[in-house]
């Protein structure tokens, strides 16, 4: 019993010593970190923190090294996501730009329609061109279901485009005034004379049948005359670029610059209240 009692006392005394040592060391550390030991404490805490920093930096470097592949995979995935997002936004920007351009065109067409209230207009989109390079035709997305009929004139806010050549239910084929088979009776605004506007294979426009007596100059505006019943009167066609007058020829000829850019036709107006008149039966047949 005595032996056991001695051991118990030893244990208690050691425990108390240990606790005291811990409390003293802890207290010293707390005081040192609190800066209460002046220079010595600064030196101590500085060294300790220096070691801490050194270990920390090395640890982070090793951690980076070990986890680098996973990070790069995450970055690659994130990059792909962002690239997809950028592509989607770019597509959206293009769509919106197209909408803005369409709105501009439609706005100009509305202005044109408002300026000429005597006609009834229907907007149509150009959805294709004739497959044959010999012909200057375009296809529009309005047909007989929308009231489009053969012979109806087609214009834009800039001027005359052509007329409907063939119609199906939901589409129509339009012969442009640049087509080699196109002929339009026109009137020259300044020189007040009539002429015939002809298309060509290259898409260039020329004037023929200008009287030799007329004084035609470059810059003269060309308007439809309405003669022949094919087109309404006073639609702008273009401007004369140059004139060819030869004394031995019956008529003068001229080259016309169209006001419409036929390569960039997007939206056009169909004049739906105009009915082309077929004057073919009135033309006398040549007797052999």
């Amino acid at each position: 019993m005595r032996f056991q009692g001695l051991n118990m006392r030893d244990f208690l005394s050691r425990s108390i010593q240990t606790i005291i040592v811990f409390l003293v060391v802890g207290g010293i550390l707390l005081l040192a970190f609190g800066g209460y030991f002046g220079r010595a404490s600064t030196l101590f805490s500085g060294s300790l923190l220096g070691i801490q920093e050194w270990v920390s930096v090395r640890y982070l470097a090793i951690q980076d090294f070990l986890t680098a592949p996973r990070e790069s995979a995450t970055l690659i995935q994130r990059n792909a996501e962002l690239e997809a997002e950028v592509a989607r936004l770019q597509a959206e920007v293009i769509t919106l730009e197209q909408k803005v351009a369409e709105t501009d065109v439609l706005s100009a067409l509305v202005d044109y329609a408002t300026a000429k209230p005597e006609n009834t207009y229907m907007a149509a989109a150009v959805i294709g061109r004739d497959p044959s390079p010999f012909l200057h035709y375009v296809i529009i997305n309005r047909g007989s279901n929308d009231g489009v009929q053969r012979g109806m004139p087609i214009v834009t806010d800039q001027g005359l485009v052509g007329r409907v050549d063939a119609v199906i239910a939901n589409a129509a084929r339009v012969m442009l005034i640049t087509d080699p088979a196109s002929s339009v009776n026109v009137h020259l605004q300044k020189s007040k004379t009539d002429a015939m506007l002809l298309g060509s294979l290259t898409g260039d426009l020329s004037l023929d049948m200008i009287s030799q007596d007329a004084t035609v100059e470059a810059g003269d505006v060309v308007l439809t005359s309405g003669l022949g019943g094919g087109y309404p009167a006073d639609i702008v066609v273009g401007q004369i670029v140059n004139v060819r007058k030869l004394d031995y020829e019956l008529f003068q000829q001229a080259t016309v610059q169209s006001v419409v850019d036929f390569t960039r036709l997007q939206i056009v107006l169909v004049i739906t209240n105009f009915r082309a008149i077929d004057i073919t039966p009135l033309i006398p047949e040549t007797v052999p």
Partner: protein
Amino acid sequence: MRNLVAFPVLFLVLMLQTTIFSRLTLLSGAADLMLVTLAALAIQEQVTSAWHWAVLGGLMIGLVSGVPWFVPVVGYLIVVGLARLLQQRFWQVPVLALFAVVFTGSWVVNLLTFAALQIMGRPIALDDALGLVILPSLLLNMLLAVPVRTLIVDLANWLYPVEETL
């Protein structure tokens, strides 16, 4: 049943022709995607229904175009005939055969169109037609032949798989 694929394929060709290729012009000429497609298809030995494709393609073009409907039909049938004829002559060099068919076929189709338009009374001069339309179109068709062939060979192999004999 596999011939029914002609409808969507040729419709796609027609759509591409009217929306894109007719706008990509060289002088006043434009590539004829339908002609090149039919030529590339007919040059494949295993394709047995190229004639049907030619009639269908010709009718589709004839429906859309201002050219009389029978002109593309006849023109494309001649192209297929040429392809069948030359395919046997140049069987070892199919690309050369395709170039020969496209070259000859372009002349035939364009001259047929020109003749039909002349009969209809359209004032087109032959030298203008040659210099501004036919020759540029011919060049564009030749340029288009190789990429189209690549696609059509895959299509032909898918539709008409070649049976290998052991």
